[in-house]
């Protein structure tokens, strides 16, 4: 008799332990481990091709990991076929059955579970009301708009009341306005339905807005697992910082400074910043968001540079400036600036992150 996880509707945690996935010579996932607690909304974030969809497929059972294991509390599930796991999944291109009406699409999972017809009809109707698609119940997917198809896909996943809902970039095929609307929809659904969700996206804004915790995946490895705030303010490595929008990365030399901060110096550059990773002195990279770097006058810490490009953005100006004999930096200015202006840029020490220089070998982190 095939096992099924119907009874595990209330679980405490889902664990990936040292999961690796190799396709021939390509390593899609490299020794990935993390834990999802019940009720959490976890986002797997990363650039295209980083393996995040593969992780989701492993959890769903559509792909078997080359090594490692997946656990639901004490049950090992990576040996189960997808139809035995009972998770709900929303696919990137929705994967609605084109020959079935909206009603039949949504009810499909319940039919597979041999529920009585009356029960199915009621649950489908409830869900249709929940996603506001009652008038479209008997249409075929081909007759619906992108946003409506999206909602059918979600409805189909939640009607089976699964312990876990998996979503693979469900918003990436929608236009910008619809994407924002659907994002709030997804938030609302998670709040009201309360199921544990694992969501894959490459869009930072989506991740920051939806997640309880984010797993940042680059090249198949988990670079950081943290809350959105932590990830935004305290990226764990230069790589992560770059991905999260720290566009400026300047090579400096550091030495101890006031309080917990370090002084960072390079030609034409004087900064105070926050160290990461136990950095105390030596060569380092200073990472600063363009929004945090602005022209100031008469500060002790300053970067002397000349403006090479400006762009008017309504609220402020975005600019690019070149340090004499040094790098180009991206910054913002509330006042007008012109090409050729000589300016002094400065940033809050809390917003300047100092990472050890990548020349130094670092231990791959075991993250939890």
């Amino acid at each position, binding site marked *: 008799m*095939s096992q099924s996880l119907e009874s595990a509707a209330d679980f405490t945690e889902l664990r990936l332990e040292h999961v690796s996935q190799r396709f021939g010579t390509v390593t899609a996932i490299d020794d990935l481990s993390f834990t999802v607690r019940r009720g959490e909304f976890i986002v797997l974030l990363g650039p295209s091709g980083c393996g995040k969809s593969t992780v989701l497929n492993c959890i769903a*059972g*559509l792909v*078997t990991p080359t090594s490692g294991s997946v656990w639901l509390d004490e049950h090992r599930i990576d*040996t*189960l*076929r*997808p139809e035995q796991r009972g998770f709900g999944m929303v696919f990137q291109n929705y994967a609605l059955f084109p020959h079935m009406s909206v009603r039949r699409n949504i009810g499909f999972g319940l039919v597979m579970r041999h529920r009585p017809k009356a029960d199915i009809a009621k649950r489908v109707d409830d869900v249709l009301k929940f996603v506001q698609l009652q008038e479209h119940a008997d249409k075929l997917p081909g007759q619906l708009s992108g946003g409506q198809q999206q909602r059918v896909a979600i409805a189909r996943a939640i009607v089976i009341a699964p312990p876990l809902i998996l979503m693979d970039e469900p918003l990436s095929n929608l236009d910008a306005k619809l994407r924002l609307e659907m994002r709030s929809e997804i938030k609302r659904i998670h709040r009201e339905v309360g199921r544990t969700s694992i969501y894959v996206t490459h869009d930072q804004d989506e991740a920051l807005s939806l997640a309880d915790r984010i797993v940042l995946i680059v090249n198949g490895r988990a670079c950081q697992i943290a809350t959105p705030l932590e990830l935004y303010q305290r990226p764990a490595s230069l790589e992560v910082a770059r991905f999260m929008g720290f566009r400026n990365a300047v090579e400096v030399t550091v030495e101890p400074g006031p309080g917990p901060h370090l002084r960072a110096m390079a030609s034409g550059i004087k900064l105070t910043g926050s160290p990461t990773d136990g950095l105390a002195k030596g060569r380092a990279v200073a990472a600063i968001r363009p929004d945090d770097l602005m022209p100031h006058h008469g500060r002790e810490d300053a970067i002397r540079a000349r403006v090479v490009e400006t762009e008017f953005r309504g609220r402020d100006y975005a600019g690019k400036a070149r340090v004499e004999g040094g790098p180009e930096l991206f910054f913002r200015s509330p006042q007008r600036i012109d090409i050729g202006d000589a300016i002094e840029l400065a940033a809050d020490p809390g917003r300047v992150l100092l990472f050890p220089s990548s020349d130094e070998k670092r231990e791959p982190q075991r993250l939890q």
Partner: protein
Amino acid sequence: MGKSVLERLWSSLVWLVIGFFLINLAGIIATVLVDSFGTRWFDTWLPAGFTTRWYGSAWDEFQLSDVLIVTFEIVFAVVAIAVLLGVPAAYALARRQFPGKHVLTLVFMMPLMVPPITYGIPLATLLYKLHLAGTMSGVILANLVPTVPFVILVMTPFIEQIDTRVEYAARVFGAGLFRTFVYVLVPLLAPGMLAAGLLVLVRTLAMFELTFLTAGSESQTLVVVLYYAVFAAGVRATQSVDAMAIIYMATTLVWMVIALRFVNPVQLVARVSDQPRR
């Protein structure tokens, strides 16, 4: 996705059936091949001895050098004319909506759905009345019937893939229709035309019924000559017939392999665009 026991059983069954099919297919081909190299073969597992003289004798007996020349003249003529007629037609169908287009498309697809014998007989009758039956021209004309629509069928997805704006750009910069064709369209369509040409070649080599109905003794393609040889096999040594059959198979095989380098096997029978699946 993981497989259940039932799925594995089914899988094995399917492979078994494939294996059976392939073994028998190999046996069939091998029978012909071995016989063509055998001295005498009546009721033993293998022929009494081996020789290559049947190939020589088949070559002379059936005048294969002439037959091959005729075959390729016919086939290449059919390919050339079918492409010359079919590509512009496919282009016009892809780029223009005009009254009667649906009817015309249907008319073009009909020869592909009606089997050759059905229209071959009246066609042969007509060619006979025009004194074209029994000549190479007659055979070529007859073979154009299934091939021109086939070229249209194969070319259509290729043409649809070309962005019309590329053509507009050519026209804006001064190229008339003819020069747009020559400098822009033909180079872009070259892979499609190559595919279409090769497919037409393979299909015409194997096209039996039409050539059979319209050819005279000087204008038979290899496959028709082979048929007559098998038909009269009682009189001739089967070994030389087999030798010719192998020569025929080798000829088609060579072109088939060449064609498969450029073409998805599915295009032999169905309309498929050549886009790789993402």
